[in-house]
């Protein structure tokens, strides 16, 4: 099963080359690559679940000089989510882009993005993380600019600028770490890092850079324009996966590598910013005129929830309570990934069929596009955190952690955020229904509606009902 790790990086890379060299069969090559990569992700998940954490040294060179790929429960889960979301979005994209030259530009960049995501999730040392982070940023920017219009290019340029700034700060932090400890391997660093000025400043630089990339309030300003102007499948992946990758890095650094360096004060700062994100993002989403802008601000808010966990995780002593909370965090991240991707794909369908995505003019969409509206409703349930979605279980852990550690204010923030989310989701649904009767035909699911529906169902139903296995998987490796 360790080979699966290499396949996860090699397959999409080969696919990117194939789609570049064979533009006419690009779509088929892309979908084929997608299926193969998803199978590899499944095999890796299975391998981690049965045999424990996996490690692969590229070229046989040991860690220190060589590049090691590592997979534990957390990365295997995220890799699986990435694979499923990208596959679904790929199926959608094959129908979304109508003109051949659009497709010729799209597929290589798309598969390159997937390569960098997988490589990032599998990286075992800091420099590899830097390289994959840059690769991710560049392909994401290029994809975001595919929208073509002035707004899209401007948003993409701002995204690039922010991304580069973040990466440079990250690299500065990496240099400090190497200066202080002489190694970049994550596992080794976790053992040797001590609290001190080197560790603090390195962590601060790296975190600052990553917070820019994960769009934590108040560094979120670049996200709504970029995600709202990008083509629908690109928005889906940007919101669901790319910002999560940066968050994953913050999580790894804070909980694994620098675990004995982080202080409750710093964690509370992250929590505070997260609270700001939840409240501000939800508020702006409620005021949004366009669906895509609503979804983008919703991403800002949902990422805020993830950061609310940090003060709780640090206040809980290591043990079952902390594991429960960490599992809730991952559950929330996974559910959001699926739900937000499904939402953006559904919005894409509305944009294509209705010609616009203005919320006020959605009347009658429920009758014309019942399956799409249903997908939005399911995704909405997961975003609000209502049962039976996975987000409900995640929010439960957030609330329970807040009560258990006596930090009541996070509970209030979560409650207000959830109610605001309910407000903006049901506002959309309220506008979508209208007076016209349903056309007298059985409800069918069009080919491009399946991905949105399945992703939303994954978030709202599957993760909620099968959630217990997430906690079991997270036990592995961390």
């Amino acid at each position, binding site marked *: 099963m360790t080979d699966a790790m290499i396949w996860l990086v090699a397959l999409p890379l080969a696919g990117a080359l194939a789609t570049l060299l064979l533009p006419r069969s690009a779509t088929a090559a892309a979908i084929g690559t997608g299926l193969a990569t998803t199978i590899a992700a499944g095999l890796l998940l299975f391998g981690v679940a049965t045999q424990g954490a996996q490690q692969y040294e590229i070229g046989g060179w040991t860690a220190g000089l060589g590049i090691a790929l590592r997979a534990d429960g957390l990365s295997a889960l995220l890799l699986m989510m990435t694979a499923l979301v990208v596959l679904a979005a790929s199926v959608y994209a094959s129908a979304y882009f109508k003109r051949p030259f659009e497709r010729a530009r799209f597929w290589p960049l798309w598969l390159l993005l997937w390569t960098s995501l997988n490589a990032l999730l599998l990286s075992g040392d800091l420099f590899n993380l830097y390289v994959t982070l840059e690769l991710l940023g560049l392909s994401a920017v290029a994809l975001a600019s595919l929208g073509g219009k002035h707004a899209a290019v401007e948003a993409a340029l701002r995204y690039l600028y922010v991304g580069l700034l973040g990466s440079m700060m990250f690299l500065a932090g990496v240099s400090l770490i190497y200066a202080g400890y002489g190694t970049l391997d994550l596992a080794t660093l976790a053992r040797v890092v001590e609290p001190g000025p080197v560790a603090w400043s390195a962590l601060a630089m790296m975190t600052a850079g990553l917070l820019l990339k994960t769009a934590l309030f108040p560094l979120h300003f670049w996200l709504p324009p970029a995600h709202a102007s990008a083509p629908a499948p690109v928005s889906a992946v940007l919101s669901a996966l790319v910002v999560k990758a940066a968050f994953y890095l913050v999580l790894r650094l804070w909980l694994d590598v620098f675990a004995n360096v982080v202080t409750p004060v710093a964690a509370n700062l992250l929590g505070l910013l997260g609270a700001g994100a939840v409240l501000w993002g939800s508020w702006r989403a409620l005021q949004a005129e366009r669906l895509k802008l609503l979804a983008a601000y919703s991403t800002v808010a949902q990422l805020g929830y993830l950061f609310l966990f940090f003060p709780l995780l640090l206040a809980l002593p290591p043990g079952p309570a902390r594991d429960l909370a960490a599992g809730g965090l991952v559950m929330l991240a996974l559910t959001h990934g699926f739900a937000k991707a499904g939402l953006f794909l559904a919005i894409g369908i509305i944009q294509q069929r209705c010609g616009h995505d203005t919320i006020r003019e959605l009347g009658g969409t429920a009758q014309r596009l019942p399956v799409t509206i249903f997908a939005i409703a399911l995704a909405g349930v997961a975003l609000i955190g209502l049962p*039976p979605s996975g987000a409900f*279980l995640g929010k439960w852990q957030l*609330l*329970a952690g807040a009560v258990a550690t006596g930090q009541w204010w996070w509970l209030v923030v979560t409650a207000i955020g*959830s*109610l605001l989310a309910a407000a903006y989701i049901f506002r959309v649904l*309220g506008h979508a229904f209208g007076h016209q009767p*349903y056309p*007298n035909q059985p409800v069918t699911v069009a080919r491009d509606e399946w991905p949105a529906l399945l992703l939303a169902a994954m978030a709202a139903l599957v993760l909620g009902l099968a959630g*217990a296995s997430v906690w079991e998987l997270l036990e592995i490796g961390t």
Partner: protein
Amino acid sequence: MNWDTWLLVLVVASSLLPGLVIFFLREDSHRLRTLLNLAGAIFKLVLVGILIWGVFHEHVYETRWTLAPGLDLVLHADTLSVLFVTLSTVLWLVTTVYAIGYLENAAHRSRFFGFFSLCVSATVGLALAGNLFTFVIFFELLTLVTYPLVAHRGTPEAVRGARIYLTYTLGGGMLLLIGTVWLYVLAGPTAFVEGGVLSSLPAEYHPQLKMIFVLLIIGLGVKAALVPLHGWLPHAMVAPAPVSALLHAVAVVKAGAFGIVRVVYDVYGVNFTDQLGLLTGLGIAAAITIVYGSVMALFQDNLKKRLAYSTVSQVSYIALGTAILGPIGTIGGIVHLVHQGIMKITLFFAAGNYAETLGIHKVSEMNGVGRRMPATTLAFSIAALGMIGVPPVAGFVSKWYLGLGALEAGMAAWVMPVLIISSVLNAAYFLPVLYRAWFRDPGPAWPAEHIPAARLETSAALLWPPVVTAILALAAGLFASAPYSPLEWATLIAEREYGL
């Protein structure tokens, strides 16, 4: 296949699966839709029959599914759940028939019946919930699936009414969730056990337990329409009559009241709740609601709004019964859960009949309707007399037990006046309606005669349900001491709660 584990899942699935299929049907496939609806309802009735027999003989049915470490989704059938499940199932069958007649030629029927079935599934799941966590899950699901039903007509008032409904219920749901999480952190997973599980907690937790209780009751009280959380109910009257019938008699309001019963009896335990001094507070809230609802009902000319405020008032009898310490008061509250359901649904069916057949929406338009629609009006009259508390209709039995229980518990000083005042008020807003219907001459023409008088006064699907439920209301009162009657079952529940 382990019957004990799967029976409860089947009970929920018997309305869930047909509902999901119905969503995909064409608008004009009446036969298939009706077939699916009725087949599901009858199948569920059969399963519930088996369940009643089993639980009576102390058989244990339980289904457990782990959602997260320490959080189990549990379906468990005890006497109280069987009571509510039976009520829901019987009334669902009747309401389905009624809805088929009411919505003939209406738009969006597939969507309606789809959500209708999901609503019953959520109610049944809630009834069968074996711990507070599961209860909260189904409680929130109920909110989600009833929203499209309230907004069904799609008019601006309907959408606005639905939005108000959602605001109240989601807000209440959040408070309920917070209370549940807090309780979970203090006391672990709280399974529903007769007599409650919290009395063994150390005394330093008591202040927190009191606050949790308040949170839970507020969260549940929104759906149960406790004053001042009842504001959504009159606005939700924009829904079609079958929805109002279901929401008031069976699903939403009852779910809130059922939740209050569960929290007091099976989480805290009635003795412990009294020890904490919370029982009196609950009783006062219930009493205020009873009187307020009745007073407001007096001033409503719109028939459905009058019935809505009547619901606000009547459901709080259940909460009042819960607040009266002692088995007799308990019986009164629990049996009223069933009796009020049957009587209120009859009233809403009748109101719907008046609107659909003759375009009557207001009490002032009801002059002489008894001559034009005698069966419907007779059913309405029986139910109304039951609401007032006139024997031998079922309502009398509940009020009798409530009064007797209050005497026994030494709370007669303030409970009896509340019961008497509310009965007087009930008479004040029902008797004039009956007088108009039977003894006044009808006006020159009905507001809008949609269904002309033929052999039957209105369509069969609209006529039979209220007649059937009126007969049930009468039977529940006349045969109250028969085995398997609601009263006998409530007595069984009280015995198990108090350990008698």
